[in-house]
């Protein structure tokens, strides 16, 4: 385990996580179209997840193999979910 790598400011990341969480909760009360609100809330959630993954899990500083192991299942899950849309969402 290397000690030379640059260490992110964990507390600063936490502050951003809290800010984004509050933003997400507030966003859910916005008087816009439901799908727009849902989209915004999920974008905020994705940003929080990215912060945790990149800085707390140190994904930003890891090798490409580790990065691939993190990304591929996420892509698969998103793909599999969308594959079900024709049958279950865009009705028969």
């Amino acid at each position, binding site marked *: *385990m290397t000690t030379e790598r640059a260490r992110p400011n964990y507390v600063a*990341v936490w502050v951003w996580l809290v800010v984004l969480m509050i933003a*997400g909760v507030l966003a859910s009360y916005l008087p816009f179209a439901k799908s727009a609100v849902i989209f915004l809330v999920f974008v905020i959630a994705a940003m929080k997840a990215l912060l945790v993954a990149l800085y707390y899990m140190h994904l930003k500083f890891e090798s490409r193999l580790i990065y691939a192991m993190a990304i591929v299942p996420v892509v698969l899950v998103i793909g599999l979910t969308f594959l079900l*849309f024709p049958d279950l969402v865009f009705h028969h």
Partner: protein
Amino acid sequence: METTAATRAVTHILPGKVGVWWFLASEVMLFGGLIGSFIVSRLGSSGWSGEAAHLSVPVAAINTLVLLTSSMTMVMAFGAVEKGDPRGLRTYLFLTVLLGLTFLGIKAYEYSSEVAAGFTPVTGLFWSFYYTMTGLHALHVLAGIITNLALFVMARRGLRNQHRVELAGLYWHFVDIVWIFLFPLLYLT
């Protein structure tokens, strides 16, 4: 400093780290499957997600804050290992365990008030999803707490083999990320 285990590995990455990421990849498929099913079911039918109005957003928001903070204390524990600070390691592991237990306590309070109001896993589709997803997540939190507690006990004997803190941290952050998606999915939409 590279450990012997890392130099012997073909990838020059600590083998334990590769192992944990493999495991996390399978966990992504597990929770991803549940989340995907929820999204597809919700978009495919209408109305049943209105049940979410019976959930308490403030309580869950506090729980989200608890889990986010526990992620920070967990990574600070790992930072303490890198700095060679045994006292810091014990303090941060202890805080992480404490925050994890707080999360479960708040979740238990939520469940009991929801059941008391008549909402059980068989009340309807939304509640089946809710209890399954948050229940499975809570079990994962429990497993993480036990692991971190074990590391805390080991830490009292010094800093050897504490690269495990980094590996346990990866699992704990993943559990946090799952909740980061569950919270808006179930409570905010």
